[in-house]
């Protein structure tokens, strides 16, 4: 009981970081409108691209390519875009800015954990991105696709899919933030973010199945589905679309938790090393 109270007290220190993350996301409203416009363009692009692919398939628009019909493919592309935004984390960038400006000195003089502080800021951002953007858009998207009969789901199965999807959504936020934190830690050594960011963004886009579903990549797709990046798009989306067996869901759940623990362990060691090597930019 006493331990619980202590834990609650020490966690309450981080609540303001959650609020700060939430408020800083709200501060840049134009970004949200910009993102929505890009979203519409991207979905139109996916639509026309896959329309061309499916039209030229042997059974035309009724073909099933790599386990997905044309409408399922469009649904996958749209969900992947919305999901990508929902889990996006600024942690890596925020750390880089602190390292670049030297303001990391202010963060390190506060009696709080550097990792947990960034995690709560990420939760604040994710709260807005998930509850105010992603979930309403997904409800509208799936409402349209189910309502128009483009895709069909068993009601009970679909509810179960949603429950697992939400669990994997949380894991995706945590894994993505851990990767962001890792990249941020590396900027303590490199003092630059641009190259690292480009590298990790391309890796993530490719290996997570955001650009093309992993099932399109044959045996490589199967291997990639076991990497941590797959949990940032492919696995959760396939679960929501009912394309995954229950046993596989549990296997992936275990793997995702394992990756999360491993990433956090690496981050912990890296921070301990960084803190000894820190050089404050700008005097």
């Amino acid at each position: 009981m006493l331990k619980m109270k202590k834990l609650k007290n020490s966690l309450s220190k981080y609540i303001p970081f959650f609020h700060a993350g939430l408020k800083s996301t709200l501060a840049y409203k134009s970004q949200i409108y910009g993102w929505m416009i890009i979203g519409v363009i991207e979905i139109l692009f996916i639509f026309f691209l896959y329309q061309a692919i499916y039209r030229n398939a042997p059974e035309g628009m009724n073909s099933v390519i790599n386990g997905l019909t044309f409408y399922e493919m469009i649904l996958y592309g749209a969900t992947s875009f919305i999901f990508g935004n929902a889990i996006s984390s600024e942690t890596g960038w925020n750390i880089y800015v602190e390292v670049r400006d030297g303001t990391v000195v202010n963060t390190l003089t506060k009696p709080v954990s550097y990792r947990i502080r960034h995690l709560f800021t990420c939760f604040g951002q994710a709260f807005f991105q998930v509850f105010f953007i992603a979930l309403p858009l997904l409800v509208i998207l799936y409402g349209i696709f189910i309502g128009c009969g483009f895709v069909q789901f068993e009601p009970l199965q679909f509810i179960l899919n949603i429950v697992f999807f939400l669990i994997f959504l949380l894991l995706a936020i945590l894994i993505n933030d851990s990767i962001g934190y890792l990249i941020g830690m590396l900027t303590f050594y490199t003092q630059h973010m641009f190259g690292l960011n480009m590298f990790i963004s391309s890796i993530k886009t490719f290996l997570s199945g955001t650009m093309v579903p992993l099932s399109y990549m044959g045996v490589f797709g199967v291997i990639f589905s076991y990497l941590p990046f797959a949990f940032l798009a492919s696995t959760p989306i396939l679960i929501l679309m009912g394309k995954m067996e229950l046993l596989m869901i549990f296997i992936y759940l275990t793997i995702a938790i394992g990756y999360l623990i491993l990433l956090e362990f690496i981050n912990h060691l890296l921070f301990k090393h960084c803190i000894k090597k820190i050089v404050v930019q700008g005097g």
Partner: protein
Amino acid sequence: MALIEVKNLSKTFKKPIRGNGLLSMIKTLFSRKYENIEAVKDVSFSIEQGEIVGYIGANGAGKSTTIKMMCGILFPTEGEIIIDQKSVLKHRKEINQEIGVVFGQKTQLWWDIPLIETFKILKAIYSVSDEDYKERFNYLSELLDLKSFMNQNVRSLSLGQRMRADFAASLIHNPKILYLDEPTIGLDVLVKDKIRKAIKELNHHYNTTVILTTHDMKDIEELCNRIIIIDKGSILYDGNLEDIKFQFGNIKNIVFPRFEGFDENKIKEFNDKINIEVDENIKLSFSLNDVNMDALLLMLIGEYKINDFKIFDIGIEEITKELYAKNEETKK
């Protein structure tokens, strides 16, 4: 027992050697050489509760590096820092609770949110009780005149407003020690004055220990009783401000406007130990040990009919210059 004890502190940075030109830059891609820079060398001092200490030196002298080690941000290469009988390296988080820090060029305020939110965040971080928070918040907002922009986003504040807010933010948890690293840099005279008054008032009100680095010698003269002068990582002087003025021969300066017919030779004839500088004004500097000031004044008034002049003691800036010059000479 002193509140802060710095024992044989040294810090060496490993810095890559970069040559000039494209070829050298390409070379560094394949083999990189490093040099060791000793930023702080065997520095030791102790500070008592309630002292205001000026830590001064030229750019790159090692001031900020020492302060950052004292805050636990940088790890010393050698030596240790004890605050309130605890090692900074071993009890960093605990000690962070006891210190407040203002880095003049690096804000601790949350950029995208209203200023008041930063104070609320800091209240939670430092677990400040509602009662204490209310008392300090009101006191600091009044002292630093923050109320008019408390609800503005930090990114929209002027530098002066931001510095005042930064200063208040570092004090909301009533730290035992306040580190101020160039707190008045880039500020106008009015804001500087406000910050100086606030430092004095806080030291008096809460008995806060203040360690101040600055290039503005007026900060030092107005605030500090004790100064530590550092050059190239080593301490040149640690002691009372008045003592060092005395050590420098009780030097006085007389300044009056430049005029037609001023003859330097006449002054030299009066006493050749008077140093004369002529620009828009004429400045005579001398030691009271060598020159009879009353006689000099009588001569200036009698001979030149000067009735508009200022007399002031040697400034800390001049003392620092002298110390630096002496240090260079000793090395040669």
